[in-house]
């Protein structure tokens, strides 16, 4: 339990500390050190859960089980690698005059603040606190999206603020309805929002209220997941904010919102006794998957393109959780990890590539393999991984998802395959000339740190070749919790 408190304490005090330190040069090292602390604490927490099973804190405020512990570890890990990347990246942004010292301080403080809200959302047992944390995540990142203070970035920030604020308000209405439904069946009224309590009473909660609540929750958290048609904020926020932010928004925030949605689905399913929640998720997921795949073709901005790829993958995961059943759920849980790792690695690479070319416009980034081979090859490998090439982990999880789909809804495999092919074409027709081809004259020399990318891609490769026993067990336990039976 101590480990959990430290996992939360590190980023929280980090946000305060970095808010006070005005010195931007040391801030990036402090930022990195705090992320190391968080990762070590998260690792100890994971060991604890592995040995003793689910942990409930004394005040019942925190609850850690197999489902959220692996996401906590993933969050801490991606947080660390992104902070390593953000050091040289933000220094370069400062050198070329895009941000001043004051905004560097804001950036570092909010970076930790964002990690704190994500970890709090994952570890809390109280569904109300879950909402508060996810809303707080919007608040910590909204000024970062508009960090560069250009017309476009302010527009993106405003859109992000309004759309996510309005969207997440629907989720609060859904949460209130869940509390209302629980008040009828749970004796201790104050406990009516605690996940551990709700789960035992889920089957007795009123059907009508839960169905209505789930619709509101799906719309609300779905906005944050980036499901079409509520996705408009996402490409703007990702493309206009600083790149490390895009990496953790895409890699972490979307996952956490989906996590919240799945938690609520676990409550809605026994209460509804039918597949309504699953059908809704399948519909939204399939729509996002298809629309994002097509829109990949129409992008001119490299970060926008990859944010559409995020929408596509989140759609796929939502679809998989919607299908339900052990195989699809296991695949979706695995896909959460491999997508986070790959997508954050891609954003790191894209950040370096756009600094080398001095622009984010796809048609102006050319010949990366010649100007900086490490960046060029990483971009190519990352894109291969995200497109689902074997032997990368994305292939494994997508293969599991497709197998599950063939079992339960064979006719849906066709749109999935078409969607994948369309997305694949969209990615590669843009990536190929950026990686190969002649580099233009005015390329810049930028300090690059490719270690985070190499480590991420190596991990994704490892997960594609063999899933470690510990992880497989966690995912299996989480699958058992979500759908009642495991795959192993």
């Amino acid at each position, binding site marked *: 339990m101590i480990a959990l408190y430290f996992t939360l304490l590190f980023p929280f005090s980090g946000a305060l500390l970095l808010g006070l330190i005005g010195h931007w040069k040391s801030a990036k090292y402090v930022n990195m050190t705090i992320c190391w602390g968080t990762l070590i604490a998260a690792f100890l927490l994971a060991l604890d859960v592995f040995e003793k099973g689910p942990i409930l804190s004394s005040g019942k405020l925190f609850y850690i089980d197999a489902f959220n512990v692996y996401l906590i570890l993933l969050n801490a890990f991606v947080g660390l690698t992104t902070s390593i990347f953000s050091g040289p990246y933000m220094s370069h942004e400062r050198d070329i005059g895009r941000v001043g010292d004051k905004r560097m301080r804001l950036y570092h403080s909010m970076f930790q603040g964002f990690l704190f809200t994500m970890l709090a959302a994952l570890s809390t047992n109280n569904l*109300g606190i879950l909402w508060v944390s996810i809303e707080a995540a919007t608040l910590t990142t*909204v000024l970062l999206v508009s960090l560069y203070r250009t017309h476009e970035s*302010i527009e993106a920030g405003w859109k992000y603020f309004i759309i996510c604020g*309005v969207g997440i308000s629907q989720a609060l209405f859904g949460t209130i309805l869940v509390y209302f439904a629980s008040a009828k069946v749970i004796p201790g009224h104050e406990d009516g929002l605690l996940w551990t309590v709700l789960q035992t009473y889920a089957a007795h909660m009123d059907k009508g209220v839960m169905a209505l609540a789930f619709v509101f929750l799906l719309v609300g958290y779905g906005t944050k997941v980036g499901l079409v048609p509520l996705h408009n904020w996402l490409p703007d926020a990702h493309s*206009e904010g600083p790149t490390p932010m895009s990496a953790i928004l895409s890699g972490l925030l979307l996952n956490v919102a989906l996590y919240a949605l799945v938690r609520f689905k676990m409550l809605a399913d026994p209460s509804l006794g039918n597949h309504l929640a699953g059908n809704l998720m399948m519909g939204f997921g399939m729509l996002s998957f298809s629309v994002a795949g097509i829109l990949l073709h129409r992008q001119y901005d490299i970060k926008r393109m990859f944010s559409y790829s995020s929408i596509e993958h989140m759609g796929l995961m939502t679809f998989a959780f919607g299908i339900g059943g052990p195989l699809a759920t296991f695949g979706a849980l695995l896909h959460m990890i491999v997508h986070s790792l790959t997508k954050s690695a891609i954003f790191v690479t894209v950040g370096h590539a756009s600094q080398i070319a001095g622009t984010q416009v796809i048609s102006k980034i050319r010949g990366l393999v010649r100007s900086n081979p490490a960046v060029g090859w990483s971009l190519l490998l990352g894109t291969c991984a995200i497109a689902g090439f074997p032997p990368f982990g994305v292939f494994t999880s997508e293969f599991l998802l497709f197998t599950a789909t063939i079992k339960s809804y064979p006719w849906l495999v066709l749109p999935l395959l078409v969607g994948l092919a369309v997305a694949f074409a969209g990615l590669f027709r843009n990536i190929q000339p950026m990686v190969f081809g002649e580099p233009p004259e005015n390329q810049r020399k930028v300090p690059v740190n490719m270690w985070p990318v190499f480590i991420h891609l190596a991990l994704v490769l490892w997960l594609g070749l063999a899933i470690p026993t510990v992880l497989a067990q966690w995912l299996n336990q989480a699958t058992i919790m979500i759908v009642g039976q495991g795959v192993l």
Partner: protein
Amino acid sequence: MLIASLSMPEQVTLTLSALILLSSFLLLAQVRVDSLINTFALQGLLLFSATLAIAFISGKYDLLISAALTLGLKVIFIPSLLRRLIIRLDIHREIEVLVKPSLVMLFGGGLVLFSYYVSLPITELSLLSTRNTIAISLAVVLIGMLMIISRRKAISQVIGFMSMENGLFFAAVVSTFGMPMVVELGIAFDVLVAVILFGVFFFHIRAEIGSLDTDRLNRLNEVDK
């Protein structure tokens, strides 16, 4: 349901919730920026009274803390902050041209009907003295959303946003006598931070486009360049 057959406290709650809904429509129709803020403060005051009334009816005295939070935050702090902001931005006398006001009002009426339709299963189930207030709270939330969609000025959108929060708070009070205190405090803190950030954004938007007209924030789109 006959109004006369209800007890006095129930009548008070119902009247207050009707007034809250009315204030939502007032917000929708208001064109002057300063009276928009006053109407928002009025809605907060009604919300405060409704929370007080329910606290005394139900005997849940925790609600008094929520009521105090509402009074401090939504009646005093946020309106006064917004008033200061519009004076500093020199837009306190501005009049906003509404787009198709009668259509928007009609649509708002439709949203109220929709809310009643949607919350029918809930009101039938409810044993609380505050039976159809949940439909009203949903209507307030949806009208807030409609306001954000139909207005152009950033400040009107923010007030729409805050009015949505009012609807949510009202829903929590009438359906379940408020959320657990730790959640309530968390939400209040989020609202507070959101308002301050909105204030920061006003200055950024004005610095960039010279006005608070969000219609001019239209550069980002999907078309190939």
